[in-house]
């Protein structure tokens, strides 16, 4: 539910309750006013009726009409005038209400009881009906005005907020633009804009600072590696190298390569954790896997591992393309590196799931753990010669995109499952 809907819901509820109560109260007061006017009318009618009776006192009981009765009474029953509501009862009619004035007067030493009645049910119902009709039309007009001006005012008042919201949705720390707000007289929006602007500026500064730091670190690491590598490249051209020296040089080459790999992996992890991969797109996983399998065929070939891709349902996922490639290549390289000689790798693709199933290699006591202390996680594959950041990278990418990573190991297979 958005802000406009919530505001309108609140406004309509309050308005509805207010209209209902005001309607009920106004009907109550209207009914009171009608009864008062009837009472006043009865009071006004009483005097001419009594005067008329005094002029023609011919009978003991006088019925001027069904609404006016005068009967003789005794002096012990004389009371003050009393007006009350009674229910008229008739066999052919519904029970109806009437206001009744009960009064006593004396004429020629005789006490008379006067009863004036005025039915008002029909009258009251008619007046109430007209009033309700009028009230409904009035409330309808008021509601329409509230909806129209509510929308208009909402749009006008909240325009800077929505403008800011759109900008924040599209804001990227790598972009040159910072959020800009429409001119507004509302102090809170100006404060919000200032706060957002400062926050965006800080985020941009922090991002650029991290980027600069990362580039400088990378430069600082790679420059000496380049020097080492180039010196080694020159050194191996010498024809005077002994076998021992050649083996030592090869060890240095391997160290440089591993240092470079570690630097790249750490830089990648740093970039993943600091949100440096911002551009996402919908990736079709199957062709990506097929391409990676082809490119990394040399790894499978080395151990004569057969790769089978089983496409059960197409799998699409919205993520960064480079990270999707890193994820798949790391899964593949792990499966090949720790796969059994002449074994197999089965890749099952479902619409929400990816499974890598491969035959495990025999454990070798001389091997080193796959996940180093840097990764802080238990290795699926047990031991290997690598720097152990591959699985950490897989887990970080999965974490970033909300992919569930599950690894299972048995004596006959390694199973890695990703739930998208």
């Amino acid at each position, binding site marked *: 539910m958005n802000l406009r809907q919530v505001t309108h819901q609140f406004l309509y509820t309050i308005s509805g309750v207010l209209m209902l109560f005001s309607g009920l109260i106004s009907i109550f007061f209207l009914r009171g006013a009608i009864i008062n006017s009837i009472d006043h009318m009865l009071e006004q009618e009483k005097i001419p009726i009594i005067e008329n009776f005094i002029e023609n006192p011919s009978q003991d009981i006088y019925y001027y009409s069904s609404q006016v009765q005068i009967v003789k009474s005794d002096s012990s029953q004389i009371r003050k005038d009393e007006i009350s509501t009674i229910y008229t009862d008739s066999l052919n009619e519904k029970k109806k209400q009437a206001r009744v004035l009960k009064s006593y007067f004396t004429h020629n030493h005789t006490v008379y009881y006067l009863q004036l009645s005025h039915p008002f049910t029909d009258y009251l119902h008619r007046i109430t009906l007209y009033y309700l009709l009028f009230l409904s039309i009035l409330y309808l007009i008021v509601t329409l005005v509230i909806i129209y001006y509510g929308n208009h005012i909402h749009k006008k008042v909240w325009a800077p907020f929505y403008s800011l919201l759109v900008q924040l949705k599209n804001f990227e720390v790598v972009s040159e633009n910072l959020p800009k707000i429409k001119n507004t007289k509302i102090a809170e929006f100006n404060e919000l804009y200032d706060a957002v602007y400062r926050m965006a500026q800080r985020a941009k500064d922090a991002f650029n600072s991290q980027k600069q730091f990362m580039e400088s670190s*990378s*430069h600082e690491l*790679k*420059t000496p590696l380049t*020097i080492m590598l180039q*010196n080694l490249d020159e050194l191996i051209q010498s024809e005077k190298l002994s076998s021992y020296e050649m083996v030592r040089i090869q060890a240095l080459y391997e160290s440089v390569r591993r240092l470079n790999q570690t630097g*790249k992996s750490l830089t990648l992890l740093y970039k993943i954790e600091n949100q440096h991969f911002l551009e996402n797109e919908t990736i079709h996983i199957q062709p990506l896997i097929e391409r990676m399998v082809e490119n990394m065929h040399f790894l499978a070939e080395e151990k004569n591992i057969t790769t089978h891709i089983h496409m059960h349902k197409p799998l699409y996922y919205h993520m960064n393309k480079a990270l999707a490639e890193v994820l798949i290549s790391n899964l593949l390289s792990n499966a090949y*590196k720790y796969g059994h000689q002449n074994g197999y790798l089965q890749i099952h693709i479902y619409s929400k799931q990816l499974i890598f199933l491969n035959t495990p290699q025999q454990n070798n006591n001389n091997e080193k753990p796959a996940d180093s202390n840097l990764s802080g996680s238990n290795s699926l594959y047990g031991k290997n010669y690598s720097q152990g950041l591959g699985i950490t990278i897989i887990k970080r990418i999965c974490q970033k995109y909300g992919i569930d990573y599950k690894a299972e190991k048995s004596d006959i297979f390694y199973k890695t499952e990703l739930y998208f």
Partner: protein
Amino acid sequence: MKILVVEDDAAIRKSLVQYLSENGYLVESCANFREASEKVFIYHYDACVFDIMLPDGSGIDLIKPVKDQHPDTGIIMLSAKGEIDDKINGLESGADDYISKPFHLQELNARLKSIIRRTKLKGNNTLTVGILEIYTENRTITCHKKPLELTGKEYDVLLFFATNSGKVLSKEAIAEHVWGDYIDQIDSLNFLYTHIKNLKKKLQQADAPDYIKTVYGIGYKFDPHES
């Protein structure tokens, strides 16, 4: 062939100058943007190697002045930052190739030769080494005028050997040149042995001399003059 190397790190610069000079290039070098700007304004080079991060500017800003004056000058960018943006900016500015540090000298040599073939030796896409003729345009190789049936990777390995003829190539240099970044995923370069063995076998079957020599512990040397 006259080459300009612009690199702020003295050790790398010295190494590049020495290596390229040994490979028959006439090499000039400088350490900063200002000096490089003056040189490219005054002189004409067949190829330039520019480091992107210079103390007083970016190597990318040197590309346009060079290409404006001499469009046939080949340019290779070097970067230690490893940022894809740098690569894109460099290539969009007119650079012909891009190498990330750390790199092997033989890799730079292969890329330089490839650029020079493209920019300077227009139309001449044939490389002759011994009895082998390599046609870079359609990626084919003949031996005794007969086509050699090679896989894509075997072709790449042989071309890399040919462009670094007479030089000892480490296994790392060969693997990184041919398999690129995928090499980062592996621990051992033993797979290379199989590929070289197959390549040697195919050359042998085509009656080619044994040009590829194994250098104990380190790698291989391709020398058509020693056989």
